[in-house]
């Protein structure tokens, strides 16, 4: 079995004379090498679009994702209160079903001042609950806690809650939604970095990244 598997070149090199070696370099050997080379080239040409297709979602720029959507009338949010609002993701696609429904916490500070928090905990993305009495957001997964203004209070999160960019257009409260908020893809999808990141945490992160 092992004799059969030996590389032809190896066994010939030792036994054949220089003339024999020259004879081994036949036109067929050359054609085989040429054909294998062509296969490598065609394989590469074929692979590029396949890999591009596979990695397509990864190369989409953040700025392409998301848009402004209305989540309700500004007057429906009483001042000083924080309320859960459902909305349909502006980036939903065919077949998303109920996963296209998202939720956010809207805090009406006063006048046209709002804060719109993602429900995703800044630790690992679980949905945070608002407790009006203790003025805290609590996460059910690992116990992350945030204050009323989204700042980190305690637990494993290294920063405050993610915030959506918002504006009041006429009577409507409009937010910019797109990417699922994570530490890399924050809730507001524009180029402006998020406010409300704790300076200490930012320092720790960037030093790790560097």
């Amino acid at each position, binding site marked *: 079995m092992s004799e059969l598997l030996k590389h032809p070149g190896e066994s010939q090199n030792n036994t054949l004379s220089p003339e024999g070696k020259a004879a081994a370099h036949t036109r067929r050997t050359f054609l085989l090498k040429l054909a294998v080379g062509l296969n490598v080239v065609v394989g590469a040409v074929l692979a590029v679009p396949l890999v591009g297709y596979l990695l397509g979602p990864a190369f989409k720029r*953040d700025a392409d994702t998301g848009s402004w959507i209305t989540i309700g009338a500004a007057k429906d949010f009483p001042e000083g209160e924080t309320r859960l609002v459902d909305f349909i993701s502006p980036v939903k696609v065919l077949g998303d079903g*109920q*996963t296209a429904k998202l*939720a956010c916490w809207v805090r009406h500070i006063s006048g046209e001042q709002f804060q719109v928090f993602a429900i995703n905990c800044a630790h*690992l993305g679980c949905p945070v609950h608002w407790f009006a009495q203790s003025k*805290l957001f609590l996460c059910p997964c690992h116990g992350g806690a945030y*204050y009323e203004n989204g700042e980190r209070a305690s637990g494993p999160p*290294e920063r405050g809650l993610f915030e959506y960019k918002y504006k009041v257009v006429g009577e409507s409260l409009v937010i910019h939604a797109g*990417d699922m908020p994570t530490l*890399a893809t924050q809730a507001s999808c524009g180029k402006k970095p998020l406010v409300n990141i704790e300076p200490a945490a930012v320092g720790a992160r960037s030093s790790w990244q560097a």
Partner: protein
Amino acid sequence: MASLKQRGVEAGMKSYRWLEHRLGLIKPLTEAAAHPTPSSSASWWYVFGSAATVLLMLQVVTGILLALVYSPTANDAYGSLLILNHNIPLGWYLRAIHGWGSDFMIAIVLIHMTQVFLFGAYKFPRELTWIVGVGLLLLTLGMAFTGQVMRFDQDAYWGVGIGASIASRVPLIGAPLVHLVLGGPIIGGPTLSRFFTLHVFIIPGLLLAGVGVHVWMVLFHGVSEWPMPGRLVRKATYEREYKELTHKTGIPFVPDAAWKDAVFAVAILLSVMACAFYFGPIGPGGPPDPTIIQTAPKPDFAFLWIYAVLAFLPPPIETPLMLVAPVLGVAAMLLLPLFASQGERHWSRRPVAVLMVAVIAVALGAFTRLGTYTPWSPIMDAWTSDAVPPKYLHERTPLQRQGALVLQDKQCRDCHSLGGAGGLRGPALDSIATRMTEDQIIRQVLQGGGNMPAYGKALNPSETKALVSFLTTLRGDDLAPAINPAHSLTNTSDLQSLQPDLPKAGKRP
């Protein structure tokens, strides 16, 4: 009669020869099955590898049957699970077998790996068999995670969210990685399609190919002999010794050793069926609707320990640990046979190996146990559902009772227990006044610290006063209250009554 039988046998042999002449597989396979194996390896300890393969086959068969009904779109997946559970005859049983089969498979793979490690069977010349086996373990865990997403309920949705959040912590390529995992900007249709493709095509393909290579290497090198203390593995001599051993004491794998594998396979299949029948299918839980936030997401059993570890990592080193530790762990497993390919195989001569198994097993067990009751998580409804024990309200002033109301209303119970009921995130408050003075309690409540949020903005002065006056009554079984020793020293009037000759401004004696 005899001639009829003879003719029958001849006809059978003729068709066998016809088939084998064209197929050419039956003879080599029969010879491989009957390959000589050391008589010492015909042990009940050597049955786990074959049991894992049997479970893989069970998973393949039940998985294909489930795919007949399951609809892998985010829109319909949850509904098709309910149809499987309730409308398709025996659909619940198929789901149950597939779910319990996966739990059994992970357990058996881990036992198999532990046995191979403790028996030193990964040493020369079987290093690559171990390395491929580590790959098979990771693929099995990959099947478990993607399979948990197939059960597209609340836990699956938030589980994918946790996965994406971990991916987002990778430096530089975090955002593209999240998009790659999710197949888009949010968890949705493309996400489930991706995990379906992984669960049904990619990982099973790799798994079956890997098992093929793994089993081929077992046949190629033979089943490792039972380790003996003092019998060292040496690259120069091992293969000759093994050949002599199997030559002298070898028995054919089939049937002399394989009957134990067959018996164990039956036992394990019966166990899966019993669990499936008795406990039923696993889930689905609530619908995968992210606007329903009344949920405490939790991963499946095999990943509970990771879920628990993630609660305990300190924030500043969490990201590095989360990303680096798994790489180091896998690298250590892969490199193990290359660095320890020779020497002692018997566990009694490898105390470090035994200690490692013990420590890892205890750690995994402890974290899994913690993951089952998540003491770090606030209990979201404790403040409305758990009563204040009556004995803490007897003979209390109105202010103190008002404090008990504040304690409930401000959700302190979500993290602190009273009388054994309530959250476990913070310390139980039953004897808080024996550990903290009034001043310390006020400071802790208003400013927080040590993993407790500050309540300064959530409490007005009268609420604080009432709450603290209630908390100072909580002294366990009437233990002495905590006192501040410095307090009595700085109380100048007390000092003067004790030592009237001290000057009024009071230098410390």
